[in-house]
């Protein structure tokens, strides 16, 4: 046997397949039970990593500032994203606008580990989302209900997060969205098979994904929570309601003691079933982020309604 033939045989036997569905969803699975923190510079990224964050979201402005400053919110400056990527060893995520596949292509070229097609930024397309199957980088998308979650998974999202209402420090919308998703998952799981098409029609969701939930009783990809988490108790509440990990946006670096609060939220997600430990980590955290009453926000100020 010539060396060339043996090398050829070895290559065909051990073919490498990159960016498969399993490696995309696999990274989401590795982040379970963790906290993903919004950061705007390398220093904050290091604080987050030191506190025990499983990943950071690289941003120019946190949602609370986007809300305050108004105007069009776009993908962050690649220079800031790169600085953050160089500062930490944990995965780095970054946001593109809904439907803005050119921003997503730039983020993939930078090598970010996860792309968040996010309602926190101003949508670029009011009808279509990015075709996420076309990318090697995994995507996370927000959802308010199960139909929205399954449409995003149908487009290729490898992780779902409840939207909540970002930048408010108010957990009420995250709770509403998580309860809505879990309620419909239970309904599909216990429904007789001959009702699944009608449910798919009602939810405006891909039929095959509805069938999958009927069989497994869970979302086909990890289901995380975001939008309004400000305290360790908020994080624990979302874990009890079915979140598999949490995103904390403005809640850490808009609080009076980010180092202590970041660590406390990390501990709370791991020990959400232990009230004594939650009490311990919740002590003396200082002021939480400035908060907003979602009911007093005008319709055009709401971020969660963006997405179709």
């Amino acid at each position, binding site marked *: 046997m010539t060396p060339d033939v043996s090398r050829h045989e070895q290559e065909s036997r051990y*073919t490498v397949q990159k960016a498969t569905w*399993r*490696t995309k969803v696999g990274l989401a*699975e590795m982040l379970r*039970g963790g906290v993903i923190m919004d950061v705007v510079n390398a220093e904050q990224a290091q604080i987050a990593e030191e506190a*025990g964050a499983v990943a950071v979201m690289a941003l120019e402005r946190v949602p609370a500032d986007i809300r305050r400053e108004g105007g069009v919110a776009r993908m962050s400056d690649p220079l800031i994203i790169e600085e953050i990527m160089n500062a930490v060893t944990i995965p780095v995520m970054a946001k593109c606008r809904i439907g803005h596949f050119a921003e997503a292509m730039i983020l993939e070229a930078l*090598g970010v580990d996860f792309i968040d097609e996010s309602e926190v930024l101003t949508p670029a397309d009011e009808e279509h989302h990015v075709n996420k199957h076309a990318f090697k980088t995994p995507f996370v998308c927000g959802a308010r209900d199960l139909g929205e979650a399954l449409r995003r998974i149908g487009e290729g999202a490898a992780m779902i997060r409840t939207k909540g209402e970002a930048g408010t420090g108010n957990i009420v919308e995250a709770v509403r969205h998580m309860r809505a998703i879990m309620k419909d998952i239970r309904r599909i799981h216990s429904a007789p098979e001959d009702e699944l098409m009608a449910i798919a029609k009602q939810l405006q969701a891909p039929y095959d994904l509805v069938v999958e939930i009927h069989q497994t009783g869970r979302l086909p990809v990890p289901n995380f929570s975001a939008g309004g988490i400000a305290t360790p108790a908020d994080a624990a509440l979302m874990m009890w309601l079915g979140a598999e990990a949490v995103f904390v946006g403005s809640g850490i670096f808009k609080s009076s003691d980010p180092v202590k609060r970041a660590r406390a939220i*990390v501990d709370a997600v*791991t020990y959400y079933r232990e009230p004594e430990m939650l009490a311990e980590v919740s002590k003396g955290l200082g002021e939480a982020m400035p908060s907003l009453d979602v009911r007093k926000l005008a319709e055009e100020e709401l971020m969660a309604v963006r997405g179709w």
Partner: protein
Amino acid sequence: MIVGVLALQGDFAEHLAMLARIGVEAREVRKLSDLEGIDALIIPGGESTTIGKLMARYELDKAIRARAQHGMPIYGTCAGLILLANEIEGSQQPRLGLMDIAVVRNAFGRQIESFEADIPFKPTPEHPVRGVFIRAPIVSKVGKGVEILSEFDGKIVAVQQGNLLATAFHPELTDDERVHRYFLGIIKAQ
């Protein structure tokens, strides 16, 4: 026999599902008291910095180290491999440091380089196992007494040192039970 799965963070649910599938009683380990009564431990994939910090904060590291030194079998996947290593190149992060190996984190690159492939596994010489590598580490150095169980593309991706087993890949994300069954063999031999 009860196998504990360290459930501080990461894909512990997949390991629990795999153990259930092969008929082994398993339990989540989050607190010191959860270590009582387990015969072996799996350290799952996840973020090694997060798991290491939580282990140190809640003093699980000392207890696990003591149990391992008295012969308790441990199997680490990916982050678990990193946490078992004595040396983590370029990092001072908290670890168990039980195996005489050096590791390089994210050795294949960022997420976009994550891959799967059939890879050789010494205990099952006729059939390769499906290796899923996610921001995976590799073993860069091994000490005496460390057996190399798998090399892929010239890189060491599975090792064993007595009661300690570690893989850079994630059998728990596949239907392939053989690596977990091999670990059961180590437990039974103990």
